[in-house]
């Protein structure tokens, strides 16, 4: 199935060796040739010395899910030679540094030995340079083997070396050494290789965390607090990077504030303090941080304070797999905190959506006066995605929700027919009106608290009042269901009673699998969830189908549980489809799981 513009190349290297930037250059060069690519970085929770891999799938058809079956292995890490060798498909290639002789116990693949260390030792005397340029030598070899565009590569290298231009010549020299060696020793290009294409034209390549930081800038966030944790760290860092560029006045004053907090408790506390005081405010974290933030999330829920939280999920439980992806926090986020607490979740499926939904999260937080969690993950957050460019409509007015000015407070009773009370449901949508500190000399002050309170924010121990207030907050969830993003429904066969539900990063795998199944004569319908609470359409879709796979990256079928308990979908029709090994889900996994259920005979044949 592999061929021109359709293959997977994998780099096995050691982290901290400088290989990451070289590998990115390969992906970016192919992207600039117009070929759809999807790079996945598989890295250890360690700074230097452990194995790390970088996979690039090349797909002219535009399938950007991860794919099993490595066509080409660049084996640069002796620690993992054995497993890297085993991963190559029969008929594939393996490039390695042949400076030390080595026997590879497989005869069904083509070996591409290059004495990389020797080449570098001859060229450079400095030990660091010898090490760093090794990477560029294999990049050079790939230019010939895969027929990559040299001009595109030059552009990519020069972008990466911004500010260090004097290194350009040496880098190009290393590339040339690799090219020459490959031309002289192998027949180039290989049968799998690259060719200029159109699929990536107009797209951008970006990580979800970069998009998330930008979303916070565009969403108007001015207060950010965070605590470093993989894989969320680069999101607040991106916010700061973009804000320093886009949010500084002519006088050099900042229109944003960011604090690296002492822990996640403080990070969410700062964000809530900012939201309470009328700033758009956010934090970013991952699973362990969610656990720590839980008490505060309950406070923000009950006291109705807007705040945005980006959860870049990783493998759990506990410290789990900090550098592997997953969707294991659906339930812990939906119900974060004790008591009857529920939260609004958004599920972006790529960086473009992290940007749009991330910005929208700030609107929703203020509209609904509650925490909004943007549920990204390591795959979306830290990998480069080929994705649609960011767009922004300058004419949309960002609403700050029901916040009263001094004039509105004074006129409130006349206009609304009732006096103002912080937690009164005036409009029947269960969303009360809030006031900000400092607004009016004698009106609108109230005491925000996590203890039970009446509609005027006064402390109460009267159970009837308590029940009334938490019932109203629950009704606010009904309003939320009408304003959160609607699911994406894909009806491939009107009469079909079988469907798949998916969300987040599994979208490329699901779409590819649906296409493959369709080509194999199996047409099923699909719905991509974009938010919790579920809107009416979610229920209607489920009602219209009898067998529904629920694809998710966790062990306990957490989204399925939410569908059962929150949308009343009968458990019997929801078939769990679970992948939770920490790797991005593949289309093959989805296709096989569908076939195994629907057509066991076809599944067996396909094996």
């Amino acid at each position, binding site marked *: 199935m592999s061929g021109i513009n359709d293959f997977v190349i994998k780099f096995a290297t050691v982290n901290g060796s400088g290989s990451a930037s070289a590998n990115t250059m390969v992906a970016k060069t192919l992207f600039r040739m117009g070929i759809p690519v999807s790079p996945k970085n598989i890295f250890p929770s360690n700074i230097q010395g452990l194995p790390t891999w970088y996979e690039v799938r090349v797909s002219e058809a535009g399938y950007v899910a991860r794919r099993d079956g490595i066509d080409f292995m660049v084996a640069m890490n002796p620690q993992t030679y054995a497993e890297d060798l085993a991963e190559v498909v029969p008929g594939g290639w393996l490039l390695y540094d042949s400076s030390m002789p080595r026997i590879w116990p497989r005869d069904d693949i083509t070996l591409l030995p290059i004495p990389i260390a020797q080449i570098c030792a001859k060229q450079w005397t400095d030990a660091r340079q010898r090490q760093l340029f090794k990477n560029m030598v294999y990049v050079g070899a790939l230019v010939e083997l895969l027929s990559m565009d040299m001009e595109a590569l030059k552009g990519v290298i020069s972008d990466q070396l911004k500010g260090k231009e004097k290194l350009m010549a040496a880098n190009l020299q290393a590339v040339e050494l690799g090219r020459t060696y490959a031309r002289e020793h192998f027949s180039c290009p290989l049968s799998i290789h690259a060719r200029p294409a159109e699929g990536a034209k107009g797209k951008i390549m970006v990580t979800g965390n970069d998009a998330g930081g930008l979303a916070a800038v565009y969403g108007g966030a001015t207060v950010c607090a965070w605590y470093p944790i993989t894989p969320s760290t680069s999101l607040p860092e991106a916010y700061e990077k973009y804000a320093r560029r886009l949010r500084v006045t002519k006088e050099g004053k900042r229109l944003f504030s960011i604090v690296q907090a002492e822990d996640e408790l403080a990070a969410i506390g700062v964000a809530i303090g900012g939201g309470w005081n009328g700033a758009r405010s956010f934090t970013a974290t991952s699973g362990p941080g969610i656990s720590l933030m839980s008490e505060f999330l309950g406070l923000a829920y009950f006291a109705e304070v807007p705040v945005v939280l980006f959860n870049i999920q990783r493998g759990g439980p506990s410290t789990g797999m900090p550098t592997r992806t997953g969707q294991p926090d659906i339930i812990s986020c939906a119900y974060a905190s004790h008591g009857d607490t529920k939260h609004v979740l958004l599920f972006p499926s790529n960086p473009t959506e992290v940007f749009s939904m991330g910005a929208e999260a700030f609107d929703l937080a203020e509209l609904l006066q509650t925490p909004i969690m943007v549920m990204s993950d390591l795959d979306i957050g830290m990998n480069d995605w080929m994705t649609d460019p960011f*767009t922004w409509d300058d004419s949309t007015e960002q609403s700050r929700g029901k916040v009263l000015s001094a004039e509105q407070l004074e006129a409130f009773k006349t206009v609304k027919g009732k006096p103002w009370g912080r937690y009164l449901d005036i409009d029947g949508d269960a969303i009360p009106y809030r006031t900000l500190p400092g607004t009016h000399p004698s009106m609108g002050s109230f*005491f925000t608290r996590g203890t039970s309170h009446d509609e005027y924010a006064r402390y109460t121990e009267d159970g009837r009042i308590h029940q009334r207030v938490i019932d109203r907050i629950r009704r606010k969830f009904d309003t939320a269901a009408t304003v959160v993003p609607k699911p994406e429904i894909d009806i491939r066969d009107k009469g079909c009673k079988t469907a798949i539900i998916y969300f987040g990063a599994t979208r490329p795998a699901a779409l590819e699998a649906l296409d493959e199944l369709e080509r194999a004569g199996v047409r099923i319908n699909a719905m991509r969830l974009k938010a919790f609470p579920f809107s009416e359409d979610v229920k209607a879709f489920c009602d219209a189908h009898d067998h529904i796979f629920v694809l998710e990256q966790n062990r306990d079928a957490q989204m399925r549980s939410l569908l059962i308990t929150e949308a009343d979908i009968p458990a019997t029709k929801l078939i769990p489809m679970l992948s939770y090994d920490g790797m991005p889900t593949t289309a093959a996994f989805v296709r096989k799981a569908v076939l195994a259920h629907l057509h066991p005979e076809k599944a067996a044949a396909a094996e």
Partner: protein
Amino acid sequence: MSYIAKPSAHHPALPRNALGLTRRDYEGSMSTLCAGCGHDSITAAIIEACYEMDLPAHRIAKISGIGCSSKAPTYFLSRSHGFNSVHGRMPSVTTGANMANRDLVYIGVSGDGDTASIGLGQFCHAVRRKLNMTYIVMNNGCYGLTKGQFSATNDKNSPSKKGEANPFDAIDLCQMAIQLGAGFVARSFSGDKRQLLPLIQAAISYKGFAFIDVISPCVTFNNHPASTKSYEYVRMHNMASENKLDYVEPKEEITTDYDEGTSTSVELHDGSHLMLFKVGEGHDPRDSDAAIHTIRTNAAKGTIVTGLLYVNENQQDLHDVLGTDERPLNGIAMSELCPGSKALEAINARLR
């Protein structure tokens, strides 16, 4: 129901401050704390301080954690917004609030459990960030609200009500605050309004992190004579670092009866002054080492030093460090915050 509103009618003869407000306008709802609780006296001093300083109450934000002490903000400044957050986390909430709007006065109220145990980390980090706020700990050496367990500020060997001695060393929050770089550090006693009032006023006027540890006896659980946090003990062992403190408002002139040799004037950021009159040789409140030394040597003798312990008149606050705009961030229009589609196009171009 423990919300008790106060009658809102004012006696016409009540004195009014420069804003035309009476003391009653600075009060809150009726206290539900035990009669005689030290916390209520601190509440009274806060009301008096804000009234005398002619502060518009709505420009003050009062934030607390959880505990009897953290309930106190309900009992003062009903015209201010308040936030009774979660246990030990007042500092972070105040940090965020302050980042959002640098123009308000932030009064944080906490307890010794709230600050010295569960919230010790947040306390330390608010200090090092030089948050512009007044941080008041109502320190009774115990957990009042959960019925009297020892807190981390309870002195070693100071007994519980049942007579059990506390086996652990105490955390001295003033020493910690000085070490961590607080710009204004004072200790006082809820029973000494004459000292407490000017300290609160000066702390509010101070730009930067102003900390006041106020010993505030818990009459229900920790006021037996042998307790080092009881009224009796503190009255007997209180050594004021100065025998008189005066807060002089910015508009007032400093009158001349302050004697050079025995008085020090501390200038605060809004042009007000705190005049300190020393007992004996006293210590220089601008010398942090001397301040810690004074606290420690006296503590060893069982004496509690109160008054202004340390001040750094030239402290930067968090906004200075962050380089934020002079305008409150929460008031900046979305149109100014959102870079718009053109800038986004340029970003897209770089990602191609």
